[in-house]
């Protein structure tokens, strides 16, 4: 199984009362997403919409790990895409990744590690 890795630092406003995460499996493909903080799965689903991770002060220095697997269910393309969006109420930051499955209908993994920096 192909795996795409992403390591990013996310700058958020230090006074943000809540930081939200959204994750979309694009290209009309189908996947399952797990969001892990401090080794615990905090939410999961085929799409994550505006999930509140916590306040900026709580998250500062922590890693948010988003693990996903996606199967190719679009006969038009073997490309899969992921979009991760962090919103601190003031700014929105997007991170994107793409990967192609090894063969039709196969699975691909994504491991995205985001280090939160509040400043």
């Amino acid at each position, binding site marked *: 199984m192909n795996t795409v890795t992403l390591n990013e630092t996310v700058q958020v406003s230090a006074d943000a009362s809540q930081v939200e995460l959204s994750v979309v499996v694009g290209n009309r493909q189908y996947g399952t997403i*797990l969001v892990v903080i401090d080794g615990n799965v905090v939410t999961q689903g085929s799409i994550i919409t505006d999930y509140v991770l916590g306040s900026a002060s709580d998250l500062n220095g922590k890693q948010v790990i988003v693990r996903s697997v996606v199967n190719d269910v679009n006969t038009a*393309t073997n490309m899969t895409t992921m979009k991760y969006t962090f919103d601190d109420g003031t700014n929105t930051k997007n991170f994107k990744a793409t990967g192609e499955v090894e063969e039709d209908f*196969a699975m691909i993994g994504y491991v995205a590690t985001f280090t939160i920096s509040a400043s």
Partner: protein
Amino acid sequence: MKKLVLLIAFCGIFIMDTKAQTTLKMEPVTTPIYTLWGTDPSTIDRPSTPSALTTSLLSNLTQGGLPNNYAMSVAPYWLQPRYDLSFEKDYGKVWNNIRETFSASVATNHTTDSNALSQGGLGFKFQLLQGKANTKLMDSLSAYQTKVLQESMKAAPDQAKITSYQTAAKNFAQQLAERRLGSIVQISGAISADFAQNQFTNGKFNAFGIWPTYTFRTPYLDFTAIGRVIGYNMNDKIETATDIGGQLGLTYERLNISAEYVYRLQSNLSTTDETTNRYSVMIEYKLTDNAYLQYAFGKNFVSPFTPQTNLITLFGFNLGIGTSQQLSGVGS
């Protein structure tokens, strides 16, 4: 000839330009153009979403004329990533269906009758209704994807278990992709021209058509109905043939079996046969993602263009060429 060279050059540039987003697939191309020529073992095209960029094998390229029996199709919407387009977003809206399933195609053919013509054609198709995803399959796929993730997160993952979950997930993914259930409405169209003596300047409009196909799909069966009018150039005068027909198809894993019947009114075309019909049975087995074994047998229309041949018989093996995968992660 210059126009042909320009066309091929354009296709080459197009492929290079889009290489970062998609991979050229080598596999049999289904195009409405074949319906005009009657060269397909099936005259009723079962609804399918084409790959972003597909071509048949290039083994028959010829010098100084149209490539021999070549086809290529492109679904332009999928040439770039659609990051916000989740599996269920705006699902079923007609405009989305059209833009996501639209494909254009080009094809060439050399007739084997005494006329020995080179033919070139342009075609398109899109779906107004795509059917609905099987929600039971989505739940099953989610369950196995979750198992893969949970096993992968363990301190000592069991690779055998992961492989077994991946295999199960792939089977569900294939059914989810290929078997949208319910009503599917596809619009197809094509136009073709003859090129006598392989000369572009001898090009002459040959036929055109545009037609709807309605399919009702269950998990294993397809019931398809078609009504079609094709216009033929008969000595610089457009004459029409009208087709009405249906097809019953069975799909089970990698096996497809279909039987079809089409009744044709062609009083404008032929002085001897005002009506004719066509019936055939086709069996297709998908050996791998790019290799297909096909067998077809039946009776074709009695055609005023090729009256000496109306037997449909085909035993074919289509083999594609493997592709390499692309991976990238970008922060912005």
